[in-house]
Each structure stands twice: as C-alpha cells, then as structure tokens.
C-alpha cells in the first residue's frame, strides 16, 4: 500500500490508501479519517471516508492548503499504529432475489448491458464461474459483508464481502448508466454490493430488492426516528434470502411502524479475521441468533 495525497481543487484534499480495495486499506482510511476528525483542525468543513480513500473539505481562508496537507500527512503516523478493531453491529437485511421489479428494470435497460441475452444475475453468475444463478445467489448471501463506504446519494451503503479475494465476486458496471433503478435495489459493481437507498440513476448490476427502508427524509420509519440514514461505515451485514410472501409482510410491517431490523452488537478485529475468516464469520453471524 502506498498512500497518495492530492488536492481536489482549492477546497479539498483527497487521500488514497491504495488503488486496490482491501480491508487493510479500508481500516487505514477509517483510522486516518477518524484521527483527522479528532484533531479538530480549524478550517475543516467535512471529512468523508470512502472504501480505500478519504477526503477532507476545508476552508482555504482559514487554513492554507499546504498546511492542511502537512497536518494530514502527520496523521498518517497515528493511523498506522491504530487498532484494527471495531466495536460495531451486525444487521440482517432481508433480500428478495430475482424479484419482479428489478427484473422489469433489468429488461427495460437491456441495451445498456454487456450481455443483453440474459439477466444481470445470469451474467454475473456466469462470469464469476458459477454453474447456476442459485449457486451464485447462495455465494452472495452466505458470508457476511462489511459497509466500507456510505455515499453516492442519500445514505447508500457500499459493501465488501468478508471472504478471501479469490472468492470475491467481481462484475463490471453497466456499459452506460441506467436512468432508473427501483428504490432498495440490491446492486453490484466492481467488488462492491450496494443498496440503492432511493429510486434513481445507477450503473450497478441488479440482483434483488430489500423491503427494508434505509433512508427516510421524513423520519417516519420507526427505526429511522433518530436519524434519516440507517447505515454507517463499519456496519456488518448479513443478507437473508426471502420470498414474495415474506417481502410483502415486511413492507407492511415497515409501513405500520412494527418492523425492527435484527441487529446484534459485535466486535470485528481485522487480525482475527485474517487469521480465520470462516471462524470469525461464523461467530459474527451467531450473534444474530440471540436477537
């Protein structure tokens, strides 16, 4: 990993931990962005952590760009020694794979896809070496995921699967972005899964849909009363495959205000995980049994 610093115009500094995605790059970026927040540097307006990079927006009238740059470079030393351990939560997110709404959208934008002959799932399963869509879906939901970035639009989470690199699913984005994506579509691009928090444009492949609302500007959804955005970086997610009946039931429960996502508190330690991925994942997922 080699850290790269760059100005983004006169108001931003962009810091890239690595060109490649990895949990090591994510943890370093999280540590540096946390250190930048804790340093309370005068003139800093916003700090945005991302998958393997982060960005600081500052006011150059308050702190000169080169001084801001120097301060961030100093923080790298702190970040290197930071504990790669997170007190976080695991959330079960129900997914209705191969649902009729994303299917309809998949078909509407077929001419923008690499392989118009099948669905996004057919294509993703094939290029990742799976015999069937079912086996591919199983791989997508059997190991947990790590929220490595929140952004793009309104609280959209990017998720990275907690498996070794050789097992990670990789798919390209659409050739040309779609102008529409159903709200709460579970998507995939590069090595990242995502949940489209709102309806809108998008370029990720579409696999399914969750009935769980994850962004609510009006904060009427029972579990979004404290804040309108559900996910934050460091959350761990376990997809739970569901059918149409269960999908309809949860949609209704979210509307009624009776739905409570299954959530358990967990600790994630990067070294433990790297030492024993399957064991660590089993432990993370077990935590949900007590909920």
């Amino acid at each position: 990993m080699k850290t790269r610093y760059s100005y983004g115009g006169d108001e931003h500094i962009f810091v890239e931990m690595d060109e490649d995605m990895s949990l090591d790059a994510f943890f370093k970026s999280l540590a540096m962005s946390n250190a930048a927040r804790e340093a309370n540097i005068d003139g800093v307006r916003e700090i945005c952590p991302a998958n393997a990079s982060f960005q600081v927006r500052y006011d150059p009238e308050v702190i000169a760009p080169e001084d801001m740059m120097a301060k961030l470079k100093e923080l790298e030393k702190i970040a290197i020694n930071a504990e790669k351990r997170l007190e976080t939560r695991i959330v079960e997110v129900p997914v209705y794979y191969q649902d009729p709404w994303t299917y309809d959208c998949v078909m509407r934008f077929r001419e923008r896809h690499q392989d118009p002959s099948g669905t996004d799932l057919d294509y993703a399963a094939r290029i990742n070496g799976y015999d069937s869509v079912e086996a591919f879906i199983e791989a997508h939901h059997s190991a947990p995921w790590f929220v490595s970035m929140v952004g793009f639009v309104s609280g959209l989470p990017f998720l990275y699967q907690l498996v070794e690199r050789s097992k990670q699913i990789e798919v390209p984005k659409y050739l040309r972005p779609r102008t529409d994506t159903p709200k709460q579509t579970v998507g995939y691009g590069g090595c990242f899964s995502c949940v489209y928090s709102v309806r809108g444009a998008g370029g990720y492949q579409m696999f399914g849909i969750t009935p769980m609302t994850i962004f609510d500007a009006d904060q009427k959804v029972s579990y979004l009363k404290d804040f309108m955005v559900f996910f934050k970086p460091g959350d761990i997610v376990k997809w739970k495959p569901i059918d149409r009946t269960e999908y309809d039931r949860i949609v209704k429960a979210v509307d009624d205000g009776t739905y409570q996502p299954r959530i358990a508190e967990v600790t994630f330690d990067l070294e433990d995980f790297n030492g024993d991925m399957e064991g660590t994942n089993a432990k993370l997922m077990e935590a949900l049994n007590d909920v």
Partner: protein
Amino acid sequence: MTFEVIKPGLLTTIQDLGRPGYFHLGIPEGGAMDRAAMRIANMLVGNPEDAAGLEAVFMGPELKFNHDALVAIGGAEMPVFVDGEERKGWTSFPVKTGQTLKFGYLKTGARIYIAINGGIDTPPALGSRSTYPIGALGGFEGRALAAGDTVPVGKATASAKERTLDQSLLAELPKPVELRVLPGLYWHRLTEASQKQFFADEWKVAPEADRMGYRFRGGNPVKFVEREQPFGAGSDPSNIVDGCYSYGSIQIPGGTEPIVLHRDAVSGGGYFTIGAIISADMDLIGQLQPNTPVKFRQVDMASALDARHVRTAQLDKIRSALS
C-alpha cells in the same frame, strides 16, 4: 405571509446557501448554484445572505402574492413584470397583495434568483431549506415547486427598503467562457498528450446539465496510461475503486464526456477524476446554458487562491455598497 405558485416554470426550487456536514452520508451541500447571485438578491431586500429564496432555471415562475412584499431578482438576465409592468433586475421593488410576479424570455445566463424580504419560511431540514429532490429533502415537501403550492414567507425585517445594485460591481462573464481547473486527483491516469489535448480542445455544455453536474461534449476522447485495473475497480480504464468526489471535480466516464459535479453532487463513485474547477468559478457554471462553448484552463494553487480572493473582494464591495 405567503405566495401562490400559478405556474412553476421549468424547474423552480427553494434554495439557500446549503447544508454542509452530511456529504459523508451522500447528502450534498446543495444550495444556490450561483451563490453570489443568491447573496446579492438577499442583500437587495434586506435579508441575511443565507435566507432562502427561489432558484429558477431557464424560465421564470408565475407567483401571486398574498401579502405586501419586497422582491429582488438576481442572476440571469430575464425581464420581470409585476402585473404586466416591467421591473429591473438587481433592484428591489414592491409587490403588493394580490399582484402577480411574472417573467419574460431568458436573455443571458441560466438561473435567476428570487429573494423576498423575510425569506422563504418552509421547515429547514438538516439545517437548511435547500431542496434536494433525490432525497426528498428540504424545500417545499422535498420537491420542486408545482402549480397550486402556497409557500410561506417569514417576517420582514425593518431594514427592507428599495435598493439598486450598481452593476459595474458585478464580475463580467469571460468570453469565450473559461473554466479554470486545478489538475489533480487521478490526473496521472491520462497520457501526457491527452492532458494537453484536454486543455486545447473546445468543449460545449451538453443538454445534460443540472444541479448535480454539468456535462460537456465536443472535445477529443481522452487516452489512459495503460495499467492492469486495480482489484475492485471494474474493468473500464476510467473505473476506480469507488471513492469520494470533490465539489467541482471533473470525471470522464468511459473517457468521452467530462462531467463537472456541482452543488447537488453525488458524494462518491467509481469514475476517475482529473482535478477540479476552482471554487471561484463554480458560480459561473450555474449560469451556463447548453451549447455554450467552453474552454478549460489549467491553473496552479496560487492562482486558484488569488481568484478566490478577487471574488471575495468583489462581494465585499457589493456588500458595503448595499449596506
């Protein structure tokens, strides 16, 4: 105190100076695209500069006032009428109860700013009244204005009196339009020849130009330095591992058409960026119409900061002239 929307125009939204602090969650700062125009319109009616007003793009709305108000229009040049009688831009004027504010055809620029003394008084969301339609946040029920909406206006301040801006204090539009760029971010992904070509080419504002971003076309496709794509980035040479985007940053998806992210920017994504438009030129972008020829000009940090100071000084002059 309210006004009623008779016709909304093309896209008229409530905007102020934005809601910084939530970009890390994908909620952009938003606010008036031409910040200076919004500030000056507010000054003209005696409002605080961060009061909420209306931003209308290409076409003005038709508004009927239910109270006696003082109104000023800033930004693009567009004839304005009160009950059919023409009024001047950059000048505050009274609109009486029952009177209608209407606009003619756009002459120059792209966006007008309508300030009303007292400011628009819809409920703020995350500290701002700016409309962010993608997140159904802020503004009037989280959306652009529609016919039949009744919009609340706050209590007028005592300092409201008719004022006129000396327009010689305004920055002149460079012709042809030049947007100054500080190269950086993933600038190294372009070949040296392509870096030169980008600044040599003449570009035009594409029809896909909105509050999220302005697209440009007409220049040559860019060429990338060859490499094996990083893990997780995606297969196109313009792809990166999804990262944060700067306001004003220039991405070139697929290497063909540059997009400059503006006030309602997506906060991140998987396309490489070649640098960013300097902060001093962001307002100007908000006044560009589709098909406007544009050249990008390379500058360094010192010039970017100089330009920023020039703009701040201009606004200070206007502030003291109107106080």
